[in-house]
């Protein structure tokens, strides 16, 4: 199926997970290789968010194995996984209320103990998102929806991720900003981050990604090179539209 080039950074094998009695993932297999953008598509409630949460440790896998650079992630605490360099930008931004924009960013670099490096990354983020610099002393939760999304991505950049899990980064963004965000995702990727991208906007996601998976009610229904998926009629009908 998948071409055998590049080493596997993140790999899921037979992963099942859910909430209480609800099982949302039924044994999925998924691979992300170094330097790739891989996208995960699917309808509402298909289990995309659950997949990301299971990787990052917020949801406990009921079965299967998840490895990052060969190390097993299942059973580790979310904070430990994050410290390994797997950074999850969750759906809904989760800007920290009561902390200023700048403090939000600083905390994104919690695991970066070198304050000089933190400073450099902060500059970098401000360079990408000037509005965040302007608002740096404002309470982060008072930003508009789109500004909060920028903050959330900036926060992940502060961390210096090795693998970035992005959950619907374009949700609620103005069209221009959607493009802008995608450009940034691409930039991050070009700078070396491996990215697993969940997007409702399948058209753009498939443009960005190298490889894609389609999730349906907790099962992988289809996978393939992004360019091939973008031509698949079933996918076009279900997710791409006009």
């Amino acid at each position: 199926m998948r071409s055998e080039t590049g080493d596997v950074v993140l790999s899921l094998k037979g992963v099942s997970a859910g909430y209480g009695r609800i099982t949302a993932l039924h044994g999925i297999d998924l691979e992300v290789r170094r330097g790739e953008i891989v996208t995960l598509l699917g309808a509402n409630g298909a289990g995309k968010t659950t997949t990301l949460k299971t990787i990052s440790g917020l949801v406990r896998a009921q079965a299967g194995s998840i490895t990052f650079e060969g190390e097993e992630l299942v059973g580790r605490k979310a904070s430990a996984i994050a410290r390994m360099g797997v950074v999850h930008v969750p759906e809904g931004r989760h800007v920290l209320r009561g902390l200023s924009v700048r403090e939000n960013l600083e905390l994104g670099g919690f695991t970066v103990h070198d304050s000089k490096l933190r400073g450099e990354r902060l500059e970098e983020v401000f360079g990408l998102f000037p509005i965040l610099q302007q608002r740096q002393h404002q309470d982060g939760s008072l930003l508009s929806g789109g500004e909060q999304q920028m903050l959330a991505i900036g926060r992940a950049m502060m961390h210096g991720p090795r693998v970035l899990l992005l959950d619907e980064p374009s949700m609620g963004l103005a069209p221009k900003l959607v493009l802008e965000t995608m450009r940034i995702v691409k930039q991050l990727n070009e700078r070396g981050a491996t990215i697993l991208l969940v997007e409702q906007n399948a058209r753009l996601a498939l443009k960005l990604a190298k490889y894609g998976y389609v999730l349906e009610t907790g099962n992988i229904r289809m996978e393939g090179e992004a360019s091939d998926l973008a031509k698949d009629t079933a996918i076009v009908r279900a997710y791409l539209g006009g």
Partner: protein
Amino acid sequence: MFDILAQQLINGLVLGSFYALVALGYTMVFGVVKLLNFAHGDLYMVGAFVGLMAFSFLAPIIGPGWFGVGVSILLSMVAIGFLGVVIERVAYTPMLKAPRLSILITALAVSLVLQNAVLTLTNGQILAFSPKLGFGGVNLGSIFISFKQLVLVGTAAVLMIALELFVSRTQYGRAMRAVSVDKDMCELMGIDVNRVVAVTFFVGSALAGAAGTMAGAYYGSVWYFMGFLIGLKAFTAAVIGGIGSIPGAMLGGLILGLLEAFGTQIPGIGSEWKDVFSFSVLILVLVFKPTGLLGKSEQERM
């Protein structure tokens, strides 16, 4: 008349320092886990007992003076810090997903447990805590300020400022505030939430331990019921200042101390009404500034 008011000012500041120290612990714990830790006053009480025990043990070795008291305070801080963490692990952490009111009741239960455990252990006895700190002081006209008072207020101020700097300026302090808002997000940023909560409890409780020992040594007695009233007062102080805010707790403590001192002095009505006076002020403050004096309004975006 001026002398009296000046003296009451000093009385209020001393009392207010205690309130502030205890309020600080309240506020910290509240700030991070959104829990009104009703057992906090009892940690203060246990702190006083631990301090007294340490002191009784140390006084023959290192003397019953400032040094002996100082070391006792430190020991008590460590012990109560750990007790706080144990309580957090046993009683609060398992409850983090429970309704908030349930945790409140758990806190009340912990308070009852501590109080009655000490009651049983000490048979309800009041123990004397009598260090030799001398009666020296400075005279300012007709006003006398003892060294004890100066050291007390000074120590309280240093502890408070150190804490404020820690919470507002360090990554760890930021992490504490962040944990109160969104635990999952903190985990995703690599923050070990459990550890942050434990540190918070440690620091908050250690402050209560310090305050308890200081109060024991300053006033000279220790008993199992001594945490109840100050717990209530510190809670009040924390709210006046704006719960969750560290400078607020300091300010609230001092204001409450002053209100009580001057409330006693209101002509025509006696000291029996002083608490009515301070609670009325509290209510008025909240009516006009619903988040307390320095509390941040938690305006949510629509």
